[in-house]
C-alpha cells in the first residue's frame, strides 16, 4: 500500500508537469507568460471586440492587445496568434470592462462565459464604460508607463471607501439578475486625462492625450441589458438602501445662503413593507445619516442653530436622493435595490401569495420616508 501511496503522490506531481498532450498544454514557460489583468468586451458588428491589457513595468509600459471575432473565444484565438512571442495567461484577470453598446445588447452571453470559463473567477468585478467602449478604456487609459491595470488598482481602492459607487462581482450580478430580474454594475467614465493635468500644472496640451478612468455611479441592468445609469445622488442613496454607506460629499446651502460641504460617514436604512389586508401597499423607509462638516463658504455665525439648520437641510437632501432612487426603480419596474428580499423576509407567506412578481408591483407602491441626520463632528474647528 505504501507503493500505491507513493505512486499516487508521484501522479499528483507528474500530471501537471508532463505526460499526455492535454496535460502538457497546461505547461507554460514563465518567461513567456503575458499576465493579463484587464479584459475589455465590446459589441462589434454582431460579434465581439476583445481587448486585453497587462501591467506596466519599470522597463516597459503595459502591453495592450485587441482583436475582434464572432465570439470571445475566436477573438482570444486571434490575439494568441498575433502575440506568438508571448503566451497569454488569463487566470489573473482582475476586472472585466464592458462597453456601453455591448451592455445595451445584453450581458447574458458574457456572464455565461464567465460561469463556464475555467480561468476567470466568478467574483470578477464588472464595470460598464459609460458613454464609451471598453476597447478605448483598455487601449488608451493611463500614461507614463502605466495603463488601465494600474488605474483600476486605484479605482478598486477608491471604491472600497466611497459611497457613490461600488464594486460589483460577476457572481452578484448573475444572482441579482436571476433573482430580482435586475442588477447594478459599477459605471466607469473615461475622460481626457490632459484636462485635469493641464489645469493642475498649467502646462500645454499633451500630444498623446491619454485617458483617465473614474467610477461614476451605477449602471442598471434589467433582464440582462443595460437600461439606464443612476446619477451620483441616486448612487449615494443606493448605499443607504443597501446598508453599505461609504464616504461621499454632499453640498448644501446653509441658512445664510452660503455653501457647506458635508461628508457622509455612515448610516443605513430600515425598510418595512406596508401590508394592507394582505396586499402590499407600500414601503416605509427610515434612513439614518451620519455626516461631518468639512467645509463652509458662508460668513454667518456657525452656532448650534446653524448646525441644526444644516442637519435639516441634509435630511431633506438625503430624502430627495432616496426618493429619486426608489422612483427610478418604480419607473423601470426593475428591483435593482433587492427590495423583494426585504419584503419576503418581513412576511414570507404574504410574499409568496403576491399576485404578480414584485417588480411588476413596484410602480403601485406608496413610499413613506423618514430621514434622521446627525452631524458627528466638524473636524478640527469649534463651531459652537
Amino acid at each position, binding site marked *: 500500500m505504501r507503493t500505491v501511496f507513493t505512486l499516487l503522490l508521484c501522479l499528483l506531481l507528474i500530471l501537471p508537469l508532463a505526460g*499526455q498532450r492535454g496535460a502538457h*498544454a497546461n505547461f507554460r514557460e514563465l518567461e513567456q507568460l503575458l499576465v493579463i489583468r484587464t479584459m475589455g468586451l465590446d459589441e462589434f458588428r454582431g460579434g465581439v471586440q476583445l481587448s486585453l491589457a497587462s501591467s506596466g513595468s519599470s522597463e516597459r509600459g503595459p502591453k495592450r492587445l485587441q482583436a475582434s471575432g464572432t465570439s470571445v473565444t475566436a477573438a482570444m484565438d486571434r490575439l494568441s496568434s498575433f502575440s506568438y512571442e508571448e503566451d497569454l495567461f488569463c487566470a489573473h484577470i482582475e476586472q472585466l470592462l464592458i462597453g456601453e453598446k455591448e451592455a445595451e445588447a445584453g450581458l447574458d452571453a458574457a456572464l455565461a462565459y464567465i460561469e463556464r470559463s475555467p480561468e476567470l473567477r466568478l467574483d470578477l468585478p464588472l464595470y460598464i464604460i459609460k458613454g464609451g467602449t471598453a476597447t478605448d478604456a483598455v487601449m488608451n487609459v493611463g500614461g507614463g508607463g502605466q495603463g488601465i491595470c494600474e488605474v483600476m488598482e486605484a479605482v478598486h481602492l477608491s471604491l472600497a471607501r466611497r459611497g457613490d459607487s461600488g464594486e460589483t462581482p460577476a457572481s452578484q450580478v448573475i444572482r441579482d439578475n436571476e433573482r430580482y430580474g435586475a442588477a447594478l454594475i459599477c459605471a466607469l467614465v473615461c475622460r481626457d486625462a490632459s484636462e485635469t493635468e493641464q489645469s493642475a500644472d498649467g502646462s500645454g496640451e499633451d500630444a498623446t492625450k491619454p485617458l483617465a478612468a473614474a467610477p461614476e455611479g451605477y449602471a442598471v441592468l434589467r433582464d440582462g441589458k443595460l437600461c439606464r445609469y443612476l446619477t451620483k445622488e441616486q448612487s449615494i442613496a443606493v448605499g443607504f438602501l443597501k446598508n453599505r454607506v461609504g464616504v461621499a460629499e454632499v453640498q448644501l446651502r446653509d441658512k445664510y445662503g452660503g455653501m457647506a460641504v458635508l461628508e457622509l460617514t455612515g448610516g443605513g436604512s430600515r425598510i418595512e413593507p406596508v401590508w394592507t389586508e394582505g396586499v402590499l401597499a407600500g414601503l416605509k423607509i427610515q434612513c439614518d445619516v451620519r455626516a461631518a462638516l468639512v467645509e463652509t463658504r458662508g460668513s454667518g455665525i456657525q452656532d448650534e442653530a446653524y448646525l441644526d439648520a444644516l442637519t435639516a437641510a441634509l435630511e431633506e437632501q438625503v430624502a430627495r436622493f432616496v426618493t429619486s432612487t426608489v422612483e427610478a426603480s418604480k419607473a423601470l419596474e426593475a428591483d435593482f435595490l433587492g427590495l423583494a428580499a426585504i419584503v419576503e423576509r418581513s412576511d414570507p407567506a404574504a410574499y409568496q401569495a403576491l399576485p404578480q412578481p414584485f417588480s411588476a408591483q413596484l410602480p403601485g407602491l406608496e413610499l413613506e420616508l423618514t430621514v434622521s441626520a446627525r452631524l458627528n463632528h466638524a473636524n478640527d474647528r469649534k463651531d459652537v
Partner: protein
Amino acid sequence: MGEESYSRTQLLTLGTIIALTPALRLFPGQTAALAGRAAWLTAVGALPLGLAWLFLLSRLLRLRQAGENLPELALRLLGKAAGKAVVAGLGLWALLYAAFVLRAGADRLVGTVYPHSSPWVFALVMGALALAGALARPRSLVRMARLLRPLLLGILGVLFVFALPGLRLDNLWPITVGDLLPALKGTLPALDIYSGAALALCFLVGGTKETPGGFRALAAWVLGICVILTALSLAVTGSFGAELAATLARPFFALVRTLVFFRTVERVEALVVTLWIFPDFLCASLFLWAGQYCLRLLLGQNPRAPHRDSLDLGGGRWLIPLCAVAVTGLAILLAPQPQQLERWSRQLIPAINLALCFTLVPVLYIVGRKKQT
C-alpha cells in the same frame, strides 16, 4: 481474518472519505437546484430517514456470522438462487459505480484544471491505481483513509473559514413553508450519500474486531457527515446564491477559485481538485474490490482466503485485474457527452444507489428475522 482486522471506527473513517466523492460532486449543486435557498438544511432534513435506515442496517449486521461481509450474508439469508442473483447484482453495481467514480473524477480534472485534455487518460491512470488498491489487503484502504482524513477535512475546514466572509444572509434566509417541499426533494442527494457510503462499508464489515451492529457508532458517523455536507452547502449557497450554484457543474471548486488567503495566495483550486484524487482512489478501489469479491463468491471461490502478496493471483484473484480492465474500459466509454454524464451523476447513479439501499437492506433484514424465528 485476524490479519485483516480493523476497528469499527477505522472502517467508518473510510466511510467518511468515500462519502466526500459524491459530496462534492452532488451536494452543493444538486441540492441548490432542488431545494433552492433551503439547500443548507437538506443534510439535516435527510437525517431522520437516514438514521432509521442505519438502524435497520445495524440490526441486519447483527445477523452476521463471524467474518461475514454483506455478500455472504445475502447468500446465506436468501438461499442459493435468490442469494446468487442478489450477489451478482451487488457485484455489477459495485463495478459500475467504480467505473462511474473514475469517469466523474476524470471529468472533474478536465473541467477544472486541464480543459484541453481528455478524460480517458485520467480514467486510465486512476484505473491502474484502483487495481493496485484492490490487489492490496482491504486493511490498507482503511489505513489510508485514516491518513487522509485529517488532511482532507482540515483543508475543507480552512476553505470553509475563508469562505465565511463572503456568505450573504439573503442567500440563505428566509426559509418559508413554500420551501419545505423542494427542501424535502433536496434531501435525496444527502440520503444517497449517507446510505451509499454505509452500504459500501458493508463489504468490509467482516474484518471489524467489534461485535456486529453498533447503531450508536453509525449514528455518530452520519452526524459527522451531516455537518460536513451542511458546511459545504452553507459555503456554496451562501456565497453564490442558490440560483447561481444550481447552474454550476462544480460549484464547490468554483468557490475555491474565488478564495484569497491573506491577500497573497489565491487560485488554489488546482491543488484542491487534485487532492480529491485521494477519495476517488479509495472509492474506486473499494468498489472494484467489492465487485471482484462478489464475482469470486459466485464462482465458488473463497474471497476471504489469505493470499501471499498483492501480486498473488491464485484463488480466483485473477478476477481482480480482469475487473479493473472492465471498469476502466467502461469508465472510458461511459457518458461521452457532458449531458449524459450529468444524467448519470444526478439521476441514474443516485437512483440505483437509493433503490438498492432501501430495498435490499429491509428485505434481507425481514428474511433474516423470519429465519431466526
